[in-house]
Each structure stands twice: as structure tokens, then as C-alpha cells.
């Protein structure tokens, strides 16, 4: 019998488990997380059997290193989704960051660190404006960010006339290609994992982080309870902008040249990664553990398909089918838990 029931005549078999126990904790792990990690495992197995060399740790580290831009932008997307939003401007912000990085690097006396800081500030600034727009109007995030994405694309197309200038210095390119202590892991992988842990800690361990979930779950209730809803919304988009800028830097470090379109697929891929990881677009759920799995699934799946030399149209079909299967499974799991 639960200790929490004072005058209870109803019994609940679940109350047998003492609150806060390991079993209870495990029971509350969202089913999506099990599925996401199951999928990661499946991809790893496929990779292991699909190639001559098998699956080695260095190979895995390379795959994850290359996924760092997606990993970082998926963190951004998760924060926003937890907050009951969605940020369709992350791709254009990544492009902006890539363009700015190359441009600033080309200016005399530029240093990679200064460049990075300026670019992240610029991304955060764009996110701030988006956040203010969404927090102080009732424009739905899907459309608000679609609109800002369009405006951002228009502005950088106009400014560059289609042709980004400058180039990426070796100092920055080492982020993607450099070996950390001689291992196959790149610095960008460390950046991703560091951000994952940091953001995860803030979301799960701090009052402010919990309030992101509260705002996402029920903004009206949160507001009436004195939670600064607007501040959290602005903060979420601001963080998203800054993180997307980091992702943009990692991308251009990897690719070597800025482009107006290179990051476009990252917008929806980041949403997909967050959703595979258990974030619901209805807000209030999502975690860094899950999003990591989501990114890993996408990266591994692409690698599996590439290593089987699957032509790109077929890859599109397979990706879509896996996503549909995932989504159907998730909705089934969610519903059976609800009963």
C-alpha cells in the first residue's frame, strides 16, 4: 500500500513498488527510448556484418564525428520542441553561420576563436529575434519560424548574391578533421558530446530546465503559476539559434566551403532525430539521451545504406520507410501506455 494514501479504500497494484525505486524509474523510461536504442543497436549490427572490416571503434568514432553538425543542431531542435515549439529556421541559420565564418575568417587579422564567438553571437541574435517574435505574438512557431527561415534565406541570398565569400582557415577545419590525441574522434565530436551533457544537465537538473518542460506541457498553467513563460520561450529560441550557429561552424569546418543550401536538409533531419528520440511535437517531452539516439540512428542508417551502395533514390525510400515505421511504433507504444 502506498504511503501516500491516507484514507484510500481503492488499491492500486502499482503502489506496491516503493516510490523512487529503480524499478519505478525504469518503468517510467519512455518506451520510445527503448525503441530508439534498439534501432541504434540494429544499425550497429547491420554495419558490423555489412563490411569487410567489420565495425571497429575507430570507424564508429568517425561516423559519429561526421554526425556532429546534426548532433548539435538536434540539441537545438530538442530544446525548442520541449518548449512546445519547432524551429524551421535552424537550417538557414546554419547556412548563415557557415557564410559568416568564411567571411569573417577572410578579414585581416581574423582569429578562429574570435570568429567562432562572433558567429555564435550572431546565431544567438537571430534566435533572440525569433524568440521575441514568437513570445510576444500568438504566431504559431511552425509558421513563425517558416517565415523567419524564408526571410533569413532571402537576406543572405541578397547579401551574397548567391556567392558566399572567403574561406575556412585550417584552424577551424581541424575541428572536423583533426584527431583528438591521435584517436579517430574529431574535436567536433567532443563539442557535440560536451554540449549534449551540458544541455542535458540544465534541462534535467535545474529549476529553469524543468520549467522548459512545464512551459511545453501547459503554457497557460505555467504562466498562472508564475513561470516566466515568455522568457523561457525567448531563451529556447535564443539557445536554438546559438546552437544552430555552432552546428553551422562544424558543418563548414567539415565541408571546407560555405554554401547557401548545404544545411537545408538539417532542418527536418533535426526534427526527425528529436522525434525518434522521443520528443513529442505537443511539447513537454524530449531528452538529450533520446536525441543522441535519434542522431545516431540517422547517421548509422546513412552509413549502412552507403556501404551497401544503395542508390540515393532508394535511400530516400528506405529512410522514409524507417521513419514511418518508427512513428507508427511510437504512437502504438504511447497509446498502449495510456490505457
Amino acid at each position, binding site marked *: 500500500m502506498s504511503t501516500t494514501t491516507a484514507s484510500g479504500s481503492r488499491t492500486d497494484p502499482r503502489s506496491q513498488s516503493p516510490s523512487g525505486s529503480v524499478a519505478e524509474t525504469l518503468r517510467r523510461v519512455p518506451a520510445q527510448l527503448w525503441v530508439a536504442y534498439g534501432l541504434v543497436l540494429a544499425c550497429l549490427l547491420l554495419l558490423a556484418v555489412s563490411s569487410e572490416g567489420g565495425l571497429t571503434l575507430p570507424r564508429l568514432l568517425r561516423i559519429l564525428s561526421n554526425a556532429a553538425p546534426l548532433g548539435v543542431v538536434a540539441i537545438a531542435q530538442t530544446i525548442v520542441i520541449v518548449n*512546445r515549439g519547432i524551429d524551421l529556421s535552424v537550417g538557414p541559420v546554419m547556412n548563415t553561420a557557415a557564410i559568416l565564418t568564411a567571411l569573417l575568417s577572410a578579414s585581416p587579422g581574423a582569429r578562429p576563436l574570435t570568429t567562432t564567438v562572433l558567429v555564435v553571437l550572431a546565431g544567438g541574435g537571430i534566435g533572440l529575434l525569433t524568440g521575441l*517574435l514568437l513570445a510576444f*505574438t*500568438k*504566431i*504559431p*512557431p*511552425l*509558421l*513563425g519560424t*517558416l*517565415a*523567419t*527561415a*524564408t*526571410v533569413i*534565406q*532571402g*537576406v543572405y*541570398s*541578397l547579401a551574397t*548574391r548567391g556567392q558566399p565569400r572567403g574561406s575556412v582557415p585550417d584552424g577551424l577545419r581541424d575541428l572536423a578533421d583533426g584527431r583528438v590525441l591521435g584517436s579517430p574522434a574529431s574535436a567536433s565530436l567532443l563539442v557535440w558530446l560536451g554540449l549534449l551533457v551540458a544541455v542535458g544537465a540544465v534541462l534535467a537538473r535545474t529549476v529553469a530546465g524543468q520549467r522548459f518542460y512545464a512551459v*511545453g506541457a501547459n*503554457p*497557460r498553467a505555467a504562466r498562472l503559476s508564475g513561470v516566466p513563460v515568455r522568457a523561457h520561450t525567448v531563451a529556447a529560441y535564443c539557445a536554438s539559434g546559438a546552437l544552430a550557429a555552432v552546428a553551422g561552424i562544424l558543418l563548414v569546418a567539415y565541408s571546407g566551403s560555405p554554401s547557401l543550401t548545404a544545411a537545408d536538409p538539417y532542418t*527536418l533531419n533535426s*526534427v*526527425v532525430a528529436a*522525434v525518434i528520440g522521443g520528443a*513529442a*511535437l*505537443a*511539447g513537454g517531452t524530449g531528452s538529450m539521451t533520446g536525441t543522441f539516439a535519434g542522431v545516431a540512428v540517422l547517421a548509422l542508417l546513412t552509413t549502412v545504406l552507403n556501404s551497401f551502395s544503395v*542508390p*540515393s*533514390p*532508394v*535511400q*530516400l*525510400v*528506405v*529512410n*522514409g*520507410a524507417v*521513419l*514511418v515505421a518508427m*512513428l*507508427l511504433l*511510437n*504512437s*502504438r507504444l*504511447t*497509446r498502449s501506455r*495510456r*490505457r
Partner: protein
Amino acid sequence: MPELLSTTASRSVRRAGLLWLLAVGLVVVAAVAVPAFRTPVSVGSLLASMAPVLLIATGQAVAVLSGGIDLSVGAVAGLTTVVLSLYLAVPGGAPVALALALVVGLVVGLLNGAGVLAGVNPLLMTFAAAGIVQGAALLLQSTPDAATPFELVRVLGTSVGPVPLLAVVALVALVAAWWWTSQSRLGRVVQAAGYDQRTAVRLGLPVRRATLAAFALSGLFAALGGVAIVTRTFTADALVGSSAVIDSIATVLVAGIAITGGVGSVLSVLPAAVVVAVVGQVITLTGTDPYYQTIFKGVLLLLAMGVYQLAGDGLRVPWRLGRPALVRPAGLA
């Protein structure tokens, strides 16, 4: 005679009165101020370029009214162009290929609807479907006996004076879709369930049928849009609809249809499409830097949302965005 125009129709026109005024005003101003705008070439070009947008946005409007959204419209339009190009491989030739293309659109829509009914968020369901459809279209496109059915496309692409046949088709289709959503029993269920699915299910309304129908229509209209595109481009191109996704959503939004479902009228898609198209045409014709067109679209989107927010009609729309995907409430059969 106001009774002739049903109350629903006049209500939807009144609700979007500002938009209708804006559309008409823009056309008049453009015709007066920009001489090139009045030329037959320009008018024909404008109408022909509007037809696909009108068709696809109409389908999108129905999907959005039902509480969903359809990101697969562009891919479906692309697939349509490819299926048409396979007419040599189809018994019965081009007309059968045309019918087949429309059926394919319908089926993709039905599958989208089924996924949504199974509890998948429509945004993600249709996004995934878009990937699959586009992949399939690219595969088919590379088959060797693909060719453009020139005869059929020429016929479909006929113009009466500067007015292309498909612009007329688009207009008729739009009115039909509006009539269905507002005057048919199932269409009313689309609106009701789009606004509040839980209650619709509790009342025992045919929510499943309505959802399927809405997405099926969206797929069908996207396929029609693909046909309209082929009559201009004469090319099987799996990627040809990519810009249609955002354009159709923007049009639906400018039309004042709430992205949260149930609120707004398909009829308003017409003035919305006119506003977007005329401004675009004027930008091109006056030699304004074309990149401003992209910026203009974004700003227009924001303005539209701002205006409808100010016009707020007591419906608590924005907070409802986070409503979970179409899931039947637990415990109700």
C-alpha cells in the same frame, strides 16, 4: 439576393473581407501602374503559374482544416509528372497514365491519412511520405522508356485567349473543395474534428472517414497540381514540386486558415493566391531585385499571421497548436 449566396459562403467572404479587398486592389493598382502587367503574355503567364499553386494550396487547405498538414504535396506533384511520362509503358496510353497519376496521388493521400489515424503526427507522417514518394519518383524517372506525352500535355495546356484551361480547372476545383468542406456532412465533420478531435470522436462522428477523405483530397489536388505543372514544363521531374510545399502552406496561411485546424474557409485560398502571385509578378516586371521576392514571402507570412492574430475571433487558436496528434482518447471504442 443574399439567400442565393449561402450564409456559409457570405460568412467566409466577410471573414476574409480584407483579403478580398487587397487582392482586387492589387490587381487594379498593378494593371494601372505597370503597363507590362496588362499585356496578354503577362496575364497568361500569371494565370498559368497560378494554376498549380491554386490546386496544391486548395488541397493543403483541406488537410489543414482537418487539423493536419501535408508536406508530401510537392513530392506527389513531382511523382505525377513522372507517372505521366511513363505513358508508353501503360496499356491505354496517355489518358490512362493521367488517370493513374491522379489515383497515385489519391492513394498517397489515403496512406497519409491512415498513418495520421494511427496516431502519427501529420507533420512527420507526411514528411516521411514525401521522402518515400520522392525516392520512388526518382527511381521511375530514370527508367529508359520515360517520355513526355506531348499530345496530351498540349491538349491540357490549351489556352482560351490568355486564359489557360488549367487555370479554369483550378478555379472550379477550388470552389468544389470549398463546397465539400462547408456544405457536405463529411466536410463539416472535417471542420469539427479538425478543431476538436476528442469531442468529435466522443460524439461518434465519422472522424476516421473525414480524416482519410481530407488527406486523400490533398493528395489528389497535389496530383492535379503536378498535371498543371507538366503543362508548363513538359518535363518529368521528381523534384519539380519542392517549392510547392512552402508556397502552399504560405497561401493557406495568408488565406486565414488556422494551422491548428477547423477555422477558416477554402474559398479564401483564391484571394491569397492572387495576392502572392500578383506581388511576385510586379516584382519581376519592375526589375526589382528578385531576392526581395523571397523576403517578401516571409514578411507576408508574418504579416498575415499578425493580422489574423489582431482580428482574433474569440477562438483560442494558438495554444491549441500543441494538441497531440490525432489519437483517439483512451477508453473510447
